């Protein structure tokens, strides 16, 4: 039990840390992030702009809340949803033969390829593990009455 709690805490630190770092870099230069999203050639121009303005803040907030604890299951679910979106976007780029950097970490971004999808898949597993772990009180209340 103690091992499981430590493991989940480790997952929260890793996923939350990655999202805080990624979000802060994008907040610092939203136009560069917008250009990165545009490189995927999926969203219309205006939508790209609004995604670039708001999404990094959602990343920073959900990452922080995941690390700190409050709303951690909501944060984990939101992060999982974002990761599914990122994996889909990179998958689409790979299928369409679009050779671009992922735009995930500002100018430190890496190439949008299968290895990135795998890394996102690992983060998704971590985030979902945190999400499906119900708080102790909730578990007790769901036990059938004698």
């Amino acid at each position, binding site marked *: 039990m103690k091992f499981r709690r430590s493991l989940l805490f480790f997952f929260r630190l890793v996923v939350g840390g990655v999202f805080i770092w990624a979000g802060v870099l994008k*907040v610092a230069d*939203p*136009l*560069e992030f*917008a*250009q990165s999203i*545009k*490189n995927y*050639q999926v969203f219309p*121009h205006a939508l*790209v*702009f609004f995604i*670039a*303005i*708001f*999404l*990094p*803040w*959602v990343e920073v*907030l*959900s990452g922080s*809340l995941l690390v700190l604890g409050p*709303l951690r299951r*909501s*944060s984990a*679910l*939101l992060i999982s949803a974002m990761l599914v979106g990122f994996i889909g976007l990179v998958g689409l780029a790979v299928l369409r033969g679009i*050779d*671009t*950097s*992922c735009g995930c970490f500002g*100018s*430190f*971004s*890496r*190439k*949008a*390829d299968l290895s990135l999808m795998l890394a996102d898949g690992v983060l998704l597993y971590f985030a979902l593990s945190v999400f499906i772990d119900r708080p102790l009180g909730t578990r007790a209340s769901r036990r059938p009455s004698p």
Partner: protein
Amino acid sequence: MLSILLAGLVLGGVVHFSLLSRFLAGEFRHSFLDPLKYAGIRFIALQETQDLLESGEALFIDSRASREFAAGHIPGALSLPLEEMKGSGGSEEEARKSLSPRLLSFSRDKTLVIYCEGGDCQTSLALARLIHDLGFQDIRVFEGGWAEWSALGLPAEVSR
């Protein structure tokens, strides 16, 4: 979950209020290039590109993959295949490092015309930003790119 999304919307709106205002006023409709930061970069159309080629004043740069460049390019163009220069890791830093020596012999005042495939291609603009950071002050991005140039049957060179 909704509260996190809402907080993100509010924070994004407040912190980037000036960018949002500029967007709503009509800026960034063409590209996400900040004219305040990249004053030396501008977009040009076919006629200006042709004039610059005829005058011989500008250095043409092709940002497409090297095999595309080899198959056909604007006469005299220099091949700087951005995605290949990023290396296997797709790193912009890697591209920056490999760019500098290739442009060392050119004056920073030189007019540069950068193009890629055309249409939705983004490498010409990305390359323009990197080159701008090296100190070049007159960078023009040919919007129509190779697609428009070749479709009109304009002069082209093939590499052997």
